[in-house]
């Protein structure tokens, strides 16, 4: 019995060591970036382990004001939240029908959507720009959001379909026997059950779009429309010819990073409660 306990203890210890060590590295990574954002450039390169005793808060002021990160922040928040909301509105019902509906060509249609994931995005740069300009949506956050939604559909539907497919069908049948309409079954039975899946898709897309810069680089021009990741991109490209402010770059990165971390903490809480709710039934 004793021996058994120590063995279990050792295994426990190993588990904590592996998972804890890996997690600790993530924390180190975040801390290092934040510390880097408070350093002076000389120390950043010469003493990457040093702790800024005299923090250079000016890096933040410069980034937030001169580089207009304040404006970009709002743009990013608007574009990303609107896009994710619209994306869910569009793809959750579609995924539901594709995974649980009964109609001819369902599988084919589902595959057709999945194929979209294979299309390399750079292929679409020029055609999309032309389409958006023709529709008078060029260089606008609205246009960018629409493109974001469209291009995120395949991945979202693909993942959501998986979640819907794994839901027990008894509840569905029971609801139908109780006289629920198709829509009521979706709204009151399946949607709540799929909560954790939807949250996962929302988080993954939010994070992806928050950090997306290639499409926005193509579709947006005016500085007042820029998003945070474009701001980071222009900081990086300014390193050539005029910049060299790497500490300032880290300040920008921290500004981009903090909201996603907060959001993730809040939403992951949600995911957990969603899962436990599902477990009660």
């Amino acid at each position, binding site marked *: 019995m004793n021996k058994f306990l120590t063995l279990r203890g050792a295994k*426990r210890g190993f*588990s904590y060591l*592996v998972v804890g060590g*890996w997690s600790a*590295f*993530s924390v180190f990574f*975040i801390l*290092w*970036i934040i510390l880097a954002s408070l350093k002076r450039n000389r120390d950043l*390169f010469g*003493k*990457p382990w040093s702790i800024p005793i005299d923090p250079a808060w000016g890096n933040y002021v410069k980034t937030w004001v001169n580089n207009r990160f304040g404006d970009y922040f709002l743009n990013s928040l608007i574009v990303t939240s609107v896009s994710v909301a619209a994306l869910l509105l*569009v793809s959750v019902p*579609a995924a539901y029908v*594709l995974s649980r509906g009964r109609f001819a060509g369902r599988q084919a*249609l589902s595959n057709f*959507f999945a194929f*979209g*994931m*294979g*299309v*390399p*995005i*750079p*292929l*679409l740069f*020029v*055609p999309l720009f032309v*389409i958006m300009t023709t529709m008078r949506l060029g260089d606008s956050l609205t246009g960018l959001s*629409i*493109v974001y*939604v*469209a*291009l995120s*559909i*395949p991945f979202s*539907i*693909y993942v959501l379909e*998986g979640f819907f497919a*794994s839901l*027990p*069908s008894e509840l569905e049948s029971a609801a139908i026997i109780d006289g629920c309409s198709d829509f009521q079954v979706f709204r009151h039975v399946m949607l709540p059950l799929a909560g*954790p899946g939807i949250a*996962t898709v929302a988080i993954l897309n939010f*994070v992806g779009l928050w*950090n997306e810069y290639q499409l926005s680089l193509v579709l947006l021009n005016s500085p007042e429309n820029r998003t945070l990741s474009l701001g*980071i*991109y222009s900081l990086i490209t300014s390193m050539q010819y005029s910049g060299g402010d790497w500490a300032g*770059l*880290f300040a920008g*990165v921290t500004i981009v*990073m903090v909201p*996603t971390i907060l959001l*993730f903490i809040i939403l*992951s809480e949600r*995911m*957990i409660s969603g*899962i436990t709710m*599902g*477990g009660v039934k």
Partner: protein
Amino acid sequence: MVVAFLAPALILYLGLLIFPALQAFYLSLFETSGFGDTPTWVGIGNYTRLLSDPIFWGALRNMSMIMVVGGVATFGLAFLFTMLLNSGLRGKKLFRALIFLPNIIAVVAITTFWSFVFMPRYGLLTSVLKALGLTSLASISWTAPENVFFAMMVGLVWISAGFYTILILAGADKVPTDMYEAARLEGASTFQIFRLITLPMIWDVILITLVLWSIHAIKIVEFPYAFGGPNIDQNLYTPAIYLYIMGFGQREPVYALGYSTAIGVALFFLTLVTIVLLRFVFKRERVEY
């Protein structure tokens, strides 16, 4: 209901993804700079050129390395973390969040961080190795041309492991907890539980994640590109990066849009073949519970 539920997604998908993609496919049959010149019809010329382009093949090799070696490492870690996190650890939520964390950070931040880790002379890794007295290891140039691809992979796997852990864990959490408890009461080890219960129960999730990984690996641009710096060297090329270099005038004004588009189309078919293959190889009965 079917129509109402499907129509918005389908319209957006057709209009802003399929339609432009078809335009691009058509463009790949021409030679054009994209500056409004009259494209020259070359038929499959761009594709035959692709087949005899050593840079493209080098990029394909890198891509396969990412897919296979990176994939084994990523999924190995993801399975390990799922197993350990589900073995009744305290603070599972916290650990899970921290493992996923790199995924929510802008890629440039991550690549800049890793270049500080691997930097010769002043880098984080080098100074740790020096402090530990491992001078021979400390003098290795981790980002020299012969090592830089693997240095890049370390960072990539670091991110991806977190991403796929989340997906696989989300699947594993749907497995009814009483199954785990029953198994644990009968004395099954963590590994046995994972292999005999979790894995078969979440087989559909695994297939989804494998497909996602393959697609991701085939299309990968951002991470190696940002890691490569302003003038990425060919040791880090993936086909999608090559597409970018050839078509979008990065550092040099190379504007072979037709050729670049052909690379994209080739990638698309590569993705299709991979998905079909994966579905065929991993075909199994879907488990319902």
